[in-house]
């Protein structure tokens, strides 16, 4: 009997493949005909990258600084010139009236200020010690810290120069160096985070919505009452969104390398492979949501509340996980974006290979297999 069935079986395989391909083509039509969603799909990563990369950043650029200079000597003038020359600062004004500084702070015109006392240069050259005050607007602590650090280093830099030309006087300077991100660019932090966010959002939300839409429109009923395998329904839904996500990935990468000037230190091949894995994690999560949600709105809400928020909070690119209380730190381990974020940073910015991110890749694989297994088990071949 077995060999009698053989030719029958052989004929079956290509037709199933053909069915599958036509199904996939139908899914692509859904994607490309829904212009609003399409715009969102491809607009979202661009907007996110531009927002995070340029606007929402604590990177310092042309920060206004007011200088109260009682000395008006050669040393203070040089330091002021150096500050003005840097791209971080812009001189708001140089004055001898401390009240003006207070006013400017209150009005929010400046974020930082310097006060040079009388005889700054004289003190420096005769006693080898001079004082100055650096004042920063502490209402934004992160920016304030960066501003004072920058101003400090400019002053130190000047002193270093002066001491170099004058033998006999040695100034000891503590040098700090930021590895991987010497300029402390925010983009190094945000771009991998935005990647983790956008890829997950697109794959989770789109998959869940497109499956729930079939339920809502009643077409799922017709699909079920057909010889087409339910598993293939799911698979054919996943493929277009996998592709859309890959295009998104490429857009984000190109933007971050060419527009934000990020390096790409590691292997692109490895990066793409890991990203595909991460996208599949998202697709299986979307699948799981689709089996629980009854309407497109519910699916959307579940995706946003269930995915967007935890990803933003616990991926580690907005708030450092090390600073969170223990229970939240533990929770962050189940957020796929956290692991992908670590992987992207390792590959893109540090240029590390697979051996360095082996643990993270393994965890992500485990999550994917688990989610896929649960969602396939939950997928119903009937209506209830």
């Amino acid at each position, binding site marked *: 009997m077995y060999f009698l069935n053989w030719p029958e079986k052989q004929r079956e395989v290509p037709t199933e493949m053909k069915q599958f391909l036509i199904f996939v083509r139908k899914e692509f*039509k859904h994607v490309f005909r*829904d212009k609003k969603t399409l715009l969102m799909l491809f607009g979202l990563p661009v907007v996110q990258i531009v927002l995070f990369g340029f606007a929402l950043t604590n990177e310092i650029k042309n920060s206004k600084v007011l200088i109260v200079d009682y000395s008006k000597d050669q040393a203070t003038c040089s330091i002021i010139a150096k500050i003005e020359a840097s791209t971080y600062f812009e001189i708001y004004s140089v004055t001898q009236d401390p009240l003006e500084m207070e006013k400017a702070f209150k009005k929010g015109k400046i974020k930082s200020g310097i006060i040079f006392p009388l005889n700054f240069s004289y003190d420096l050259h005769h006693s080898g010690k001079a004082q100055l005050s650096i004042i920063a607007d502490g209402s934004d602590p992160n920016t304030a810290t960066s501003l004072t650090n920058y101003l400090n280093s400019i002053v130190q830099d000047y002193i270093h120069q002066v001491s170099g030309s004058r033998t006999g006087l040695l100034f000891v300077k503590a040098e700090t160096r930021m590895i991987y991100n010497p300029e402390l660019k925010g983009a190094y932090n945000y771009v991998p985070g935005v990647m983790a966010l956008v890829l997950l959002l697109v794959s989770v939300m789109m998959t869940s919505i497109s499956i729930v839409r079939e339920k809502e429109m009643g077409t799922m009923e*017709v699909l079920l009452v057909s*010889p087409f395998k339910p598993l293939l329904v799911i698979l054919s839904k996943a493929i277009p969104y996998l592709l859309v996500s890959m295009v998104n990935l490429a857009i984000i990468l190109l933007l971050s390398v060419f527009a934000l000037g990020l390096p790409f230190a590691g292997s692109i091949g490895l990066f793409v492979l890991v990203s595909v894995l991460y996208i599949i994690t998202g697709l299986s999560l979307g699948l799981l949501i689709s089996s629980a949600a009854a309407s497109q709105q519910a699916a959307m809400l579940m995706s946003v509340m269930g995915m967007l928020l935890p990803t933003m909070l616990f991926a580690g690119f907005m708030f450092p996980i090390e600073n969170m209380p223990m229970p939240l730190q533990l929770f962050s381990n189940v957020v796929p974006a956290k692991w992908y974020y670590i992987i992207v940073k390792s590959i893109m910015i540090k240029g590390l290979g697979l051996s360095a991110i082996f643990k993270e890749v393994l965890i992500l694989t485990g999550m994917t297999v688990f989610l896929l297994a649960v969602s396939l088990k939950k997928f119903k071949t009937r*209506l*209830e």
Partner: protein
Amino acid sequence: MHAVIIDTLSKVYGKDKIVAVDRVSLEVKKGELFGLIGPDGAGKTSIFRILTTLLLPSSGSARVDGYDVVKDYKSIRSRVGYMPGRFSLYQDLSVEENLTFFANLFNTSLKENYKLIEAIYVQLEPFKNRKAGKLSGGMKQKLALCCALIHQPSVLFLDEPTTGVDAVSRKEFWDMLKRLKEEGITIMVSTPYMDEAKRCDRIALIQSGKLLSVDTPAQVTAAYSKKLFSAKADNMIRLLYALRASAHVSSCYAFGETHHFHFQEQGSSIDLLNELKQAGLEQIEIENITPGIEDCFIDLMLEKTK
């Protein structure tokens, strides 16, 4: 040979134990056009979903084309055609794309089975590039029928195919079903419209999950034992109250433009007429009529509740 056999089928939903289908038994012969007639919420859709293997029965059993709806659900899925209550089409795909997609779903092509749907499809052809979402109700219904037919099913299940469709399209649709029946396809159709019942070979009247009667439309009306009268007057609302209050009338209900009623055993039409005149009604017309399916339905329903 029967195309559909339903044996003491019941369906109970959820924790509240809502009984949607209550011990229903019926048989549909091969090549028959069978109508399931009943108001909304009578359990028609539940029965259709059980027969199309979308729901599991709570108790009892059903066979379609000889296959059990629970055990052999895969075999059933590849041989029946199903048109759900809402026209389940892809709104963003064109008429032609919908058809080719559903043809592909069943391993066939538009060309292969064109003959079967030709008569219906010619009406759709001028709009074949139009998106399904932009079609009128009647057109959507025709397209959905084409999609359910494209794989030459042995049994066709149509769940309220005429709901939300205009009167002309409804008539056309039943003409199409008649042609399909001539092709040898067994058709099981549900409808809340009693006037469509007479287009079926046999009908089952269903109410609150229970079958009231299963027979040919002619037999159902023939089984109506009482004499039925219709009444008309200048003021229909007062007429209804007067008829209900009268000692000569046993039961009365509004029926479109007239009121239908039965006389009490000792009721006399002359006495009633006088009574109505005294109540101030004018232009009174009372007529003995032959009952329709709806009259039978109402009568059976009242009997059940008694």
